[in-house]
């Protein structure tokens, strides 16, 4: 024990004590927060969708929760949210790698889903493998019941293509029976996942309801000139124009219809129609345009959400999947408050619970949200839900649409 002075011992002890204290402080700090990871498309072709529907809502929610003191735990304590974010660059390979990293290296407590049907399907097996609950919001798929069974911690919140197609046919059939429109429909669809899904469900639905599809064509993704298509539709004799389209197509067709003075009694477009920029695209003449989705524009919860989103992001949310995205995060927060961060208990709480959200009280059926709006319409400056017509908060559709 030669050379071991009291001073050295003291120093060693104090250093050791400081380290232990530091570790404890670190541990205490780690317990005070919840890490939430997500890999979203900041760049690449999906950046537009993710940038409108997904990312702003994630940021708004984290900000709201943290300003309120953090996520509530079952024991009444609160934990601040810390975010780990990766850019998946719109590539599923990068996305899958990021999810793997979030789960195995960052060991985040929760993982939020990416934007898009394909992306959500790509990560579903991985999320199941690591046991994380997956609240797939921006995924429209008719196979949702099957997926929910295969991956029992996955939740599908936006319905399937046939739901939206049937909703639209119902609205048109009512107008036809009332003698407002004729039984001819001109329909175009984008030759990509979403458009194919919807037209496949819409064709039999239209025919069963006694409609005649006088113009039924698909167009390739990336088409920017719709003059030929719209001029054919205009000459088809149909009172209703229906497009199962992505935003660039929805906007292009609107502008083309306006410039060629094509005024069908029903003008329906799909994705993009409920975006806040749509009235601007339509040069302020969006009144009466129908599109996929919709919100109960009179609900105070929705109005409050729109106001907060506008203040935080700078633009209002879209009136279709944005509110559902935000609602899914509210569900997650309430499920954590009930069941904590254990993934199994959390998934169980999500499957069985009822949650108060901006879209009303939500209960999932077989891990799917079925209580949705299928058709909306621009009325008096808001995009209002018109179908299902028997759901509380539905507005009556305005047919014929006023001229551009």
């Amino acid at each position, binding site marked *: 024990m030669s050379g071991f002075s009291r001073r050295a011992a003291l120093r060693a002890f104090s250093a050791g004590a400081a380290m232990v204290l530091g570790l404890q402080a670190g541990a205490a700090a780690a317990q005070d927060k919840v890490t939430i990871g997500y890999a979203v498309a900041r760049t690449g072709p999906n950046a537009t969708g993710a940038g409108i529907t997904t990312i702003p809502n994630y940021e708004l929610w984290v900000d709201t929760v943290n300003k309120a003191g953090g996520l509530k735990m079952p024991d009444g304590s609160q934990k601040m949210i810390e975010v780990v974010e990766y850019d998946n660059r719109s590539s599923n390979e990068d996305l899958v790698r990021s999810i793997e990293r979030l789960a195995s290296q960052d060991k985040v407590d929760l993982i939020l889903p990416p934007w898009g049907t394909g992306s959500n399907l790509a990560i579903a097996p991985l999320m199941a493998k690591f046991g994380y609950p997956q609240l797939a919001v921006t995924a429209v798929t008719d196979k949702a019941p099957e997926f929910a069974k295969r991956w029992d911690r996955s939740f599908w919140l936006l319905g399937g293509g046939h739901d939206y197609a049937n909703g639209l046919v119902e609205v048109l059939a009512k107008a036809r029976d009332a003698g407002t429109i004729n039984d001819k429909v001109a329909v175009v669809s984008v030759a990509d996942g979403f458009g194919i899904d919807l037209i496949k469900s819409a064709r039999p639905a239209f025919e069963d309801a006694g409609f005649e599809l006088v113009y039924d064509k698909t167009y390739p993704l990336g088409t920017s000139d719709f003059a030929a298509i719209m001029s*054919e539709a205009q000459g088809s004799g149909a009172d209703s124009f229906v497009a199962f389209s992505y935003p660039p197509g929805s906007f292009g067709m609107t502008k083309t219809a306006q410039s060629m003075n094509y005024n069908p009694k029903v003008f329906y477009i799909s994705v993009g129609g409920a975006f806040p920029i749509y009235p601007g695209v339509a040069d302020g003449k969006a009144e009466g345009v129908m599109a996929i989705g919709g919100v109960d524009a009179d609900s105070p919860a929705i109005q409050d959400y729109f106001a907060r989103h506008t203040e935080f992001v700078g633009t209002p949310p879209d009136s279709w999947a944005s509110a559902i995205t935000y609602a899914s995060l509210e569900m997650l927060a309430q499920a954590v408050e009930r069941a904590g961060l254990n993934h199994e208990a959390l998934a169980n709480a999500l499957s069985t619970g009822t949650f108060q959200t901006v879209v009303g009280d939500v209960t999932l059926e077989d891990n799917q949200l079925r209580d949705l709006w299928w058709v909306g319409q621009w009325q008096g400056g808001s995009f209002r839900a018109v179908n299902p017509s028997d759901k509380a908060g539905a507005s009556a559709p305005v047919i014929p649409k006023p001229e551009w």
Partner: protein
Amino acid sequence: MLTTTLILGLVLGGTYALLALGLTLQYGIARIMNLAYGELTLLAAFLVVALFQGVGLSPLLSLPAIAVAGYGLGWVLYQVMMRPLVARSGASGRLEIDSILATFGLLFLIQGVLLLLFGANFTSISYLDRGVNVFGVSVALNRLIAFGICVVVGGALVVALKKTRWGLIMRAVALTPGSAPLVGIDTNRVARQGFALGTALAAVAGASISMYQTFSATGGVVFTMKALVIVIMGGVGNVPGALAAGFALGLIETFVATAIDPGLTLAATFAIFLLVLLWRPQGLFGARS
């Protein structure tokens, strides 16, 4: 029916040709295959929209300024980014590959900047968005203007390349970059001019596209693809060829969309592209090397 197809096709073809003019100049004279071409087009489109929404400057008025700015940006890009590649490649064919790789990187850089500056949202303005009657066919006025710009700019370019001394020098560098210095031509200066002029044309195309199309920061690759097909079809570096190929493509797409099926427009484009590559790999108007 036939007039409709003809007029809509010509107008569409005009915008295609306008898009491809700059790319064909850049490759023909500066030997740089610019994969960031679509992003440069978008950059101009965003600027026009920002000027229109911010200060209320009409796109037609901002167009000359955008063209000049495009020329300047092209000049700087060539001097800072391409010049070292040109110097390194010497007389070997390495420049083609190096420029493809470098501009592939530039593509993501510009896209990132656009996303940062303008966000991921779709952008559009309604400017002169009303129908004009052309021989009984209703055509959007803004598309007609884009068509007009294409005819004027493309025509002027063809005449300038054919008739002026400047055009002669340009053609000399495009045809035999190796022997042009022998007659006292500063190939580096001419290449820089060609690249800058190509960027200016991309900017003009972007400005006219911004008047009638909705776009987002991530959509540049579509423009590059279309321009690339037209440039290769028309004969790389051939300005009249790019004009003719652009018009042909617009007519064919419109004809297929009305007479056969809109779903086949893309297939028709690539079928013709393939045929041209098989029959005349140098392009419809390219010289056999």
